[in-house]
């Protein structure tokens, strides 16, 4: 298996981008990456996308995006794993380059959520239609059930949850591509409208439009495109039951733990060596569950990390320096690639006032549904 590196990245601003279509977003991010690498050639394209078919009525994104990028003819396919679609697109690109089939592959993610669709109902299709959605479950509702289970098991409080949002908005305020570039207080979070108890509006990531893209190639060819490549040391994916009711412990995300263990094993490092992480904080409780499942915080201790500053910029292990899904925004299919973009910049010293000094190892964790799928990547600066 060949060593694989990221050599260029591109990303749109995230937000309610009324003036941009699905294809506009993809082209903007992809072209930025191609321009940075100084190339107009690609061997393959993977498009991470959860549900353009439902959001904007458009399927068959592979050829559509290749065509609009001026690359008709190049193999191009959409990759779907709900909100983990982006992370899985990157993993698929990695595998294609690692095994020697292709030398330069674009892994991108895109979602256009603000075009008038019933977003709550569409997102809910990532959970079990027959046993959960039928009875009125929503995504905030399912994560609220996880939050209650976590509260019962570990004493997590609504204030602990609020601190995750406060910390991520503090980071997002420094990110010019974030949807919400402003800070929050715990009082604002705890007085925001209830969505599904105990989760409030400001515990939830927003509905976003956006795209992100990275270029991957064999490490030994990286110098053709950049002086500062980032190596993908580990990639792993795991699954768990789609329905929350089928999990033995609703407060623990098995797929996140399994994908983390496999990625660490492949990379040959442990959680204590990670310098900066992007994890899937679609709801504030999710960040707490994810850092615990990945071993970035001991089980039951994750709830304290945002408040104490352990996971804030300047802390022991900065988590979601981009602002996370909460503040940067969550165009679902783009999120996994946007995490890789943030870490590519962190590990090449390009994060400006969000820079984690001397960061060598970065971890990205991206999940679909209520953690029915999870994909983890470990990156290293070289």
């Amino acid at each position, binding site marked *: 298996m060949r060593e694989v590196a990221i050599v260029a990245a591109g990303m749109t601003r995230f937000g309610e981008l009324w003036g941009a279509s699905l294809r506009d977003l993809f082209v903007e991010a992809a072209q930025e990456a191609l321009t940075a690498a100084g190339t107009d050639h690609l061997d393959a394209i993977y498009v991470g996308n959860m549900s353009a078919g439902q959001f904007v009525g458009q399927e068959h994104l592979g050829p559509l995006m290749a065509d609009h990028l001026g690359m008709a003819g190049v193999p191009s396919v959409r990759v779907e794993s709900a909100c983990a679609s982006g992370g899985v697109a990157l993993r698929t690109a990695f595998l294609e380059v690692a095994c020697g089939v292709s030398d330069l592959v674009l892994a991108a993610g895109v979602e256009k959520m603000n075009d008038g669709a*019933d977003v*709550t*109902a569409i997102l*809910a299709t990532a959970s079990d*239609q*027959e*046993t*959960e*959605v*039928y*009875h*009125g*479950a*929503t995504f*905030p*509702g399912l994560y*609220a*059930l996880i939050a*209650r*289970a976590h509260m*019962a098991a570990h004493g997590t409080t609504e204030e602990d949850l609020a601190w995750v949002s406060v910390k991520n908005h503090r980071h997002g305020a420094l990110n010019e591509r974030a949807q919400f570039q402003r800070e929050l207080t715990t009082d604002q979070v705890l007085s925001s*409208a*209830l*969505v*599904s*108890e*105990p*989760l409030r509006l400001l515990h939830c990531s927003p509905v976003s439009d956006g795209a992100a893209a990275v270029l991957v190639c064999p490490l030994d060819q990286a110098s053709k495109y950049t002086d500062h490549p980032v190596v993908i040391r580990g990639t792993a994916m795991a699954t768990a*039951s789609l*329905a*929350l*009711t*089928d999990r033995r412990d*609703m407060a623990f995300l098995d797929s996140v733990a399994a994908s983390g263990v496999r990625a660490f094993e492949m990379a040959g490092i442990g959680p204590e060596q990670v310098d900066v992480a992007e994890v899937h904080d679609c709801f504030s409780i999710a960040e707490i569950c994810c850092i615990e499942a990945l071993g970035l915080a001991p089980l039951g201790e994750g709830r304290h990390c945002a408040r104490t500053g352990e996971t804030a910029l300047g802390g022991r292990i900065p988590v979601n320096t981009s602002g996370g899904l909460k503040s940067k925004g969550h165009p679902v299919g783009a999120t996994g690639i946007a995490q890789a973009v943030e870490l590519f910049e962190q590990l090449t010293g390009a994060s400006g006032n969000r820079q984690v000094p001397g960061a060598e190892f970065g971890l990205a964790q991206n999940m679909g549904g209520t953690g029915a799928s999870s994909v983890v990547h470990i990156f290293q600066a070289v």
Partner: protein
Amino acid sequence: MPSPRYWREIPSRYRLEATRCGDCGHVSYPPRRICPECRSTAAETIELSHEGRVLTYTVVHVPPDDFLMEAPYALAVVETPEGARMMVQVADCDPASVETGMLVALEFRLIRREGKGGILCYGYKAVPAYPMGGEEEAELRSKELEVAHA
């Protein structure tokens, strides 16, 4: 939900049919062909008890469009004595009164009016297990009927 799909789900939705693994005893609801615990294909069909216990719950304030008339509603994970778990709404009580460990009965109810056609879809909801009786119960039931026919 197109009607063939709805029709296929009737045994589990209307009769609470589940499968019990012939090898490890794990109960799956709705029925499964392969046991998720031990991969055995030896399963017998059983009917679940119409009662259970709330494992965890939430109150949904922002619902999907089909449930706009219902919100806020309590949604809970309920475990039956057989060990099957199901997600159900908790009805006939103030959503704020639902709590972990609460005993519930499972009753056959209208679940949703689907889409623009308003097709009626049925299944089970949990209700507090203690008998409410008297005027209060009668009032709640008539209220639910009113909503159903609105």
